């Protein structure tokens, strides 16, 4: 029995420690973002890695998400004779919910995992220690450009996701199922307001910061993981944890942000 409580206590302390570390990591990362000098070329490079290189997967998933929304929406709405609302249904679903969430999940899988693995490898091969010993702040040099790039990229990728999704819905709802093109766009124009776009924008901004925070900190502290976070196995397990935690956090935050912004 005593053993059980000891384990429970050790677990609680471990997770409390991890949470505290992540909090400190966020603090130093935000501080290094605000404080000059600003590393413009590193930010551009990271925006390319996180944003531009994710474009294809975003277009692909956005298109098919829109197409399936068009297909499902058309069949459901046609039961009530409301096919004319397909455009606004597709657009609102994408702009308010699916766009930010799915784009964030895609970026987590593509760029978040890469960020965690990259920083994790830098940690276990003493490259981060080397930076510290050279009096170069690792937060400023490695983390801040990724953070800024994540915050810049996610809203833009979400916008691309939304637009391709709307076009996917159009392809199926209008092109394949014979809906009216004018009605598709006019219902969208009528029902989608600034508040919807604002909600999607705020969500994508928050998700961008969330992904980089979780993935970068998991890599940064890979050596402090329970059971020894060393070697390829340590990095692989940290990367898995980072992707799972980011994905779950995106869905949780989505609910909270929606309830605040609605």
């Amino acid at each position: 029995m005593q053993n059980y409580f000891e384990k429970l206590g050790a677990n609680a302390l471990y997770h409390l420690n991890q949470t505290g570390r992540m909090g400190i990591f966020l603090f130093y990362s935000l501080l290094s973002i605000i404080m000059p000098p600003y590393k413009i070329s590193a930010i551009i490079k990271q925006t390319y890695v996180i944003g531009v290189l994710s474009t294809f997967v975003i277009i692909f998933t956005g298109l098919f998400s829109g197409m399936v929304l068009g297909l499902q929406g058309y069949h459901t709405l046609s039961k009530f004779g409301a096919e004319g609302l397909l455009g606004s249904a597709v657009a609102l679903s994408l702009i308010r919910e699916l766009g930010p969430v799915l784009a964030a999940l895609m970026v987590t899988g593509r760029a978040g995992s890469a960020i965690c693995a990259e920083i994790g490898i830098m940690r276990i091969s003493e490259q981060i220690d080397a930076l510290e010993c050279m009096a170069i702040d690792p937060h400023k040099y490695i983390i801040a450009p990724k953070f800024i790039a994540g915050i810049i990229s996610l809203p833009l990728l979400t916008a691309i996701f939304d637009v391709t999704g709307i076009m996917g819905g159009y392809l199926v709802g209008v092109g394949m199922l014979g809906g009216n093109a004018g009605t598709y766009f006019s219902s969208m124009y009528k029902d989608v307001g600034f508040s919807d776009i604002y909600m999607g924008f705020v969500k994508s901004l928050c998700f961008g910061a969330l992904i980089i925070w979780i993935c970068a900190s998991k890599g940064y502290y890979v050596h402090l993981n329970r059971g020894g976070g060393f070697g390829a196995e340590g990095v692989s397990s940290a990367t898995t944890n980072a992707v799972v935690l980011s994905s779950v956090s995106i869905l949780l935050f989505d609910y909270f942000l929606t309830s605040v912004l609605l």
Partner: protein
Amino acid sequence: MNNNAIVELIDIKKSFGSQQVLRGVNLRIMEGKTTVIVGGSGQGKSLIIKHILGLITPDSGRALVYGKELNRISKKELKDIRTNFGVLFQNSALFDSMTVYDNVALPLRERTMITEDETGRIVNEKLKMMDVEGTNNKYPAQLSGGMKKRVGLARALVLDPKIVFFDEPTTGLDAAKSNEIYRVFSRTQQKLGYTSVIVSHDVPKIFKLADYVALLHNGVVRDCLTPDEFQLSDDPVIKDYVETTMGPLYSSEMEV
């Protein structure tokens, strides 16, 4: 504190889980001198360097560099102290996604305001000093072990540091390559005049470079002596270490 001791470790203790690695390390590093830390594998020699670098916080005890206790100063003060450091890590710790040139240029680009032309001149000069000129566009993965060490040394020395740490500089190198590293070390120290701390297994060869030798045994520094004093020490642990690593020849000399 002695005015010449720029680094002082006082009763440093460090454990990892139930394993106590350092059990009260006391050590002084004298300015302008070469101090070599020797001892068996897994004794915590590299851990001592990490305490001096401020990468690890001791469970108890004090690590003083320039009279400042590392775990009691601000992040900025620690950063200021580290501007005096140059470090050659055991595995060189080169940035594997950067070329040799970018690796060596990094401290100059991040810590100075000099032009790219000047950076190029200094980088090429240091690479030449280490006999690795012409490798500018290679990546660390394309270099041999000895070349990586020399590039690591070039990076460590690029800002002319006051204290240079070498963690197992010759581990994994054959005798010829080890000698090359020692030659480079000797040449650069004469030229730049830095204080150096070397963790090494390479006994007795490393004694030729040392002003002081410290033996780490069972988590404590037994003593820090000049190489001659070290080899003739009456301390049974040091004596045993000397006999084990240098052979019976020395013990017979001692008996004379």
